[in-house]
């Protein structure tokens, strides 16, 4: 089961979980994803090779999508 999580004060919060064959969970995940992006969060998909991808649409084939806050120069 794929997960959409948000890094926050609790460590992280699972906002949605979905499976490829369950349309209702997919739609709920897409809605949660868009809502968080509208709030200014950014989405990242960690890959097994140690890289990560910036995503602006929920990749339904990803196992884990992480929503994070923007970074800035100190």
């Amino acid at each position: 089961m794929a997960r959409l999580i948000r890094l926050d004060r609790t460590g992280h919060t699972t906002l949605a979980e979905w499976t490829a064959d369950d349309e209702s969970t997919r739609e709920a995940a897409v809605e949660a994803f868009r809502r968080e992006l509208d709030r200014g969060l950014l989405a990242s998909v960690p890959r097994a090779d140690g890289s990560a991808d910036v995503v602006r649409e929920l990749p339904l084939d990803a196992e884990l999508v992480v929503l994070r806050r923007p970074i800035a120069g100190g």
Partner: protein
Amino acid sequence: MPGAKAGAKPPPPPDPHPRPGLEEARALWWRPEVTAGELARQGRRWTVWTAWIAIVFSAPGAILLVVSPLTLPVALGCFAHAWLIPWLQARRGARAVVPLRDADGGADAAAAAEASRVALGLLGDLVGHRERELLAETGLALERGLLGVWLVGERGALMVRPGGRRVDSWCVTVGEPEDLPPADRIAHLLLALREDEPGFAKVANLGFSGAPWRVRRGLPERCRPALAEARRAARVGASTVSRGALVPIDEL
């Protein structure tokens, strides 16, 4: 020799081909892209600046001593400045990186401890086995990139250039970090670095660039093994440029 400051954000020009990668870097459209060549130029500027400071303060001290040995106290003051200013810059660079700390619970220590545990679990999943051990030991997350080997803290990052003979200190932080558990702050920076390394360097401010020994003496004792490990990784990976071609830390 401060890095570029973000300042007020001017409106971006129309761009039919927006920069891929980090959103944060795209917003800083007026800043130059960070490349290995640009970093080499920055490094040379730092070296010249340090040498200039040493000469500017040492030369008058030497001249004073030649003119009259009675000026020794003033000459010593000049020599002290020649040593002190580069030392302060290197110390500032080292202190820009804050290693992982225990959660500051405040009024709700139990909730903070639980959040810290959850955040550490996710961060542990993001890094490899050896990097996880290094993180626990030193409080810094080691990440190999194309520009160098990074050590990421709760705030700030160090980057050891390929070859291990120069370290850059970057001032960078997650937005509104106050309510985030310490490990989550590292996870934010680590994810951003992995998404777009040149973009990460573009967003961060270069605060210092110089020899590793200069940075090492300003680091907390706990963090020094991480710098040594990063230098080893940078030396091994110096002849390669691709992330995948670098030798895994477990094999060093």
